[in-house]
């Protein structure tokens, strides 16, 4: 073999080695799912495809955990992982799945709403693939993903995404953003089908109250807040007051903008009988001015550059040396969910929902998220 061909062979070999090393990690990302323990309160585990068969066998099918009380009451659905890099909602869902009991009514939990978006990162964002939560018995791992459906599950994007049914123009890549594709479309893209499937669950399970959990970067104005569809604004007002009065949680409330389509707080409220709300916490790893992007940042939420931005007055949220720890964010979300359920039960006593054994903000901060995570079998 001449030198030239030897050189070319070596270079191709270099490329193949890089692809094999990275490809192995990508395949793990794509295929391995974190174990979730069905807690004592879980009465049924269903799949999204049970409500919309088109999703059967696809990467976007996902588990639905249902906790039913002995007494009849209202039904609440809590979704997380609509954006898979916003993890405190996932933690809140998992804590409820593994710890909570429902005494009255029904709680429906979807922790990994966009299951495809958990299977890849966002090129350029350098996210870790996983994060680990320490517990008394070891550690639990969870996937960390992107805002968007993995392109290998939905490709290509249009130049401009025209939302169905409103006709509003959005950026092309938002066609893979589940929180821009509600209320979904039965014969649409796979992401639109997930939106449609969630709407089917809402209809078939007679969901009265819908809560979608998110996180936002400190430089984004919609943060540490509850966004409510106009029909659910009274619930947001009561929840905000109670969170502040009883748990010292400062949280904003805002009404869902009428002309901003595709988001859960707008579309679920407009296209179903459920009252819809969305809650946000502060998530430093999403901020473009963050420093080192690693697992520590996911967990502690501490970052010097964001601190500097706080001092320059550029943030929409208080931020200090203590950062925005996963315990704080999860505690906020868990208390917010419980408080919204209480407010709903207060306003609609005939559809009361009573949840017990769910930790609140102070307890989660005191004991840490890991304390509430059960040990998976095997």
């Amino acid at each position, binding site marked *: 073999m001449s030198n030239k061909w030897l*050189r070319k062979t070596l*270079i191709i070999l270099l490329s193949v080695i890089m692809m094999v090393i*990275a*490809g192995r990690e*990508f395949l793990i990302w794509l295929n391995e799912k974190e174990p979730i323990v069905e807690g004592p309160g879980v009465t049924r585990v269903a799949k999204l495809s049970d409500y919309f068969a088109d999703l059967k066998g696809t990467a976007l099918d996902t588990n639905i955990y249902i906790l039913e009380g002995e007494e009849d009451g209202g039904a609440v659905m809590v979704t997380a992982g609509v954006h898979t890099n916003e993890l405190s909602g996932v933690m809140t869902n998992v804590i409820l799945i593994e710890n909570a009991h429902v005494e009255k009514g029904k709680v429906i939990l979807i922790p990994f709403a966009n299951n495809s978006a958990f299977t*890849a990162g966002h090129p350029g964002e350098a996210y870790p693939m996983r994060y680990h939560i320490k517990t008394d018995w070891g550690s639990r791992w969870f996937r960390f993903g992107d805002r968007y459906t993995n*392109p*290998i599950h939905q490709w*290509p994007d249009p130049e401009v995404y025209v939302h169905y049914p409103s006709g509003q123009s959005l950026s092309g890549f938002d066609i893979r953003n589940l929180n821009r594709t509600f209320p979904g479309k039965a014969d649409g893209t796979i992401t639109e089908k997930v939106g449609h499937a969630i709407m089917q669950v809402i209809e078939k399970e007679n969901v009265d109250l819908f809560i979608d959990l998110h996180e936002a970067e400190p430089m984004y104005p919609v943060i540490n807040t509850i966004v409510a569809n106009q029909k659910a604004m009274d619930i947001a007002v009561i929840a905000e007051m109670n969170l502040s009065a009883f748990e010292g949680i400062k949280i904003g409330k805002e009404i869902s903008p009428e002309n901003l389509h595709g988001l859960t707080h707008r579309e679920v409220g407009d296209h179903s009988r459920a009252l819809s709300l969305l809650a946000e916490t502060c998530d430093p790893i999403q901020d473009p001015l963050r420093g080192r992007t690693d697992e520590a940042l996911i967990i502690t939420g501490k970052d010097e550059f964001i601190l500097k931005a706080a001092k320059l007055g550029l943030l929409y949220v208080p931020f200090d040396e203590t950062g925005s720890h996963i315990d704080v964010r999860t505690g906020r979300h868990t208390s917010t969910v419980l408080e919204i359920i209480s407010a709903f039960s207060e306003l609609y006593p005939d559809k009361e929902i009573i949840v017990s054994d769910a930790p609140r903000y102070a307890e989660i901060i005191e004991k840490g998220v890991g304390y509430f995570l059960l040990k998976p079998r095997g």
Partner: protein
Amino acid sequence: MVTLIYYLFCAFVAILLLWNFVEEENLYNEILYAFVLMPFILRILRIY
């Protein structure tokens, strides 16, 4: 159907890149090909 065309086109570009790589004389460009090929190949294999 549309998605299939995109995969086929990716494969087409990957083949053309390989063809040009074979004819390339400059060492540094050859090394750059090693990186440029990666997204095309991994996308065709539906790994990323």
